[in-house]
């Protein structure tokens, strides 16, 4: 990797230098345009959703269930309850396993094993969610029927790598002085972890959970297999299938009726607000947590 210096100096005159300067500026302009393009795309999508969905937002939208065929009105109350329950159960499944995995990786696993586990988590994160849907469908749905718990299990698998990786990052931020302090006081490793390190990292763990929930709330693929036939009422029994916001958007997006489409936009607005809010809060919280932990050094 050698650097070939150009024969003509950059400063000073010469057509060659001017051309190089112009190329440089053009490339920088392209890079800036690329960044603007990404921002424009984001604003375009969010703008469409906001503009088309806002008119359908009303109190009744949040307190009604889906309307019958050819009837107007209707709302996403059962979808909201369903998504809350599904992501709640998924969080209860994923957080203990994810945090324990992170603890295992940082405290107990020898480097080759922890590297292997990290790779396994990254591989799991890369499995397409539709394949996870096929997996859970064969395991928990065939022969038993659909249920919200099956959907939660699929969502938990999707959330697990996110929570484990982020928790590990936070745990590693905790300075060794804290750990050594615990050991010096005669505590077992376990006690140090549970009474010193975890409380210090709890902010990061909560952040990781918020981001993972925001991601899981928008997943549609596993729900197609596990919770696509449901009653048109608010269902709270997790052994039954339930409506959910992403699936409602999915079905209404392909409907020809204008009121269905508007409800899809409105549900998308609700979903995007929650997801983006969760992501932004997660990002800001993680910056704050990092700063807090740095201060304990």
């Amino acid at each position, binding site marked *: 990797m050698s*650097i070939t*210096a*150009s024969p003509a100096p*950059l400063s000073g005159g010469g057509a060659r230098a001017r051309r*190089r300067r112009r190329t440089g500026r053009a490339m920088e302009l392209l890079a800036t*345009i*690329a*960044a603007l*393009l*990404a921002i424009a*795309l*984001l604003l375009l*999508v969010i703008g469409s*959703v906001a503009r*088309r969905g806002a008119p359908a937002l009303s109190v009744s939208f949040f307190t009604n269930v889906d309307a019958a065929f050819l009837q107007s009105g209707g709302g996403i109350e059962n979808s909201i309850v369903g998504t809350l329950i599904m992501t709640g159960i998924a969080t209860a499944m994923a957080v203990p*396993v*994810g945090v*324990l995995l992170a603890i*295992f990786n940082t*405290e107990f*696993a020898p480097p080759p094993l922890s*590297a292997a*586990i990290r*790779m396994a988590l*990254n*591989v799991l994160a*890369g*499995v*397409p*969610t*539709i*394949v*996870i849907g*096929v*997996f859970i*469908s*064969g*395991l928990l749905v065939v022969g038993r029927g659909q249920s919200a718990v099956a959907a939660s299990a699929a969502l938990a698998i999707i959330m697990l790598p996110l929570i484990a*990786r982020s928790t590990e990052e936070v745990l*590693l931020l905790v300075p060794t002085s804290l750990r050594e302090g615990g*050991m010096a006081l005669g505590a077992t*490793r*376990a006690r140090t972890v549970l009474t010193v390190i975890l409380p210090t990292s709890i902010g990061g763990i909560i952040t990781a959970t918020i981001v993972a929930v*925001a991601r899981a709330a*928008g*997943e*549609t*693929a596993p729900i*197609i297999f596990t919770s*696509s036939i449901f009653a048109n009422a608010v269902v709270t029994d997790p052994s039954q299938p339930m409506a959910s916001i*992403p699936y409602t958007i*999915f079905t209404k997006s*392909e409907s020809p009726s204008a009121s269905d*489409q508007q409800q899809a*936009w409105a549900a*998308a607005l609700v979903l*995007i607000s929650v*997801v*983006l809010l969760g*992501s932004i809060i997660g990002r800001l919280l993680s910056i704050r947590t990092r700063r807090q932990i740095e201060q304990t050094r």
Partner: protein
Amino acid sequence: MSIDSPQPFTVPVRTRPRYGDLGLRAVAGSAAVVLVAVMAAIVYQVVREARSSIGQFGLGFLTDSQWNAVTDRFGALDLIWGTLVSSLLALLIAVPVAVAIGLYLSELAPAVLRTPVALMVELLAAIPSVVLGLWGILVMGPFLAEHIEPFLADHLGFIPLFSGTPSSHGLLPAAVVLTIMIIPIVASISRELFTSVPSDLKQGAMALGATRWEMVRSVAIPQVSGGLVAAIMLGFARAVGEAIAVSQVIGGTLNLGWSLFAPADTMAGRIASQSPGAATALQKSSLAYLAVILLVISLITNISAQLISGRIQRRMGIQR
């Protein structure tokens, strides 16, 4: 999205194990066992569901162009084609844009803009795919069909890619949706990579008289080229695995043609659209066979990407 290997905290060996430590080690270790068990279960279960289709068609499944529930004959060729065309086209557009964004964020952006712009690029990744699909069906697809595709057909129609009738459902809207999904992934990895290039290398080049662009081209990019390959592979894996948004805009048709305007289908999209209503057991098994193919692709690309980036980090001595 960290693919680095941080060093764990190691403690001097104790001669006598403490019960509390054993307890926590066992409980935490069981979480690792759960992880391995889940991953093994995924592979086992999906392959098992595909068993009868694999037994019936074997590897010929990959080269067969039929998908016929009447004669119970299924083949993935059209779907593989649709997957490749839409994903590669999306990569073609997304990678230069994403690498440019990575460069912008690491080299060009004023410090005060860095975090907000990086955040907005990440938010692009946070948009749920079903919402992108909704936007694709009702906004982007019709826009493409009414304005972009006729323009392309009129002026570039001699190229097979741009021949055919403009349609709001097809490979082009699918590629656009996939592009939006790939950009944030590749951009954030690129940004990390460019930031990790040692600054003395960068400044050395500038001191020797290179413009910033020349420095990037001859120093930074070669330095991180391996990592960029890994990023592209991850972006490719993401595109191949996307089922929902693609199934909403691609038109669900078997198609081996070149026209980007024509409706087509991808492996993931077909699983999403046909699984709930599969008419025969062999069809369900064939859909699981598609899932096996997707799983293999995702495993190979993910593991390769991680091995590549692991090797780069060892070479550069990166520690977090």
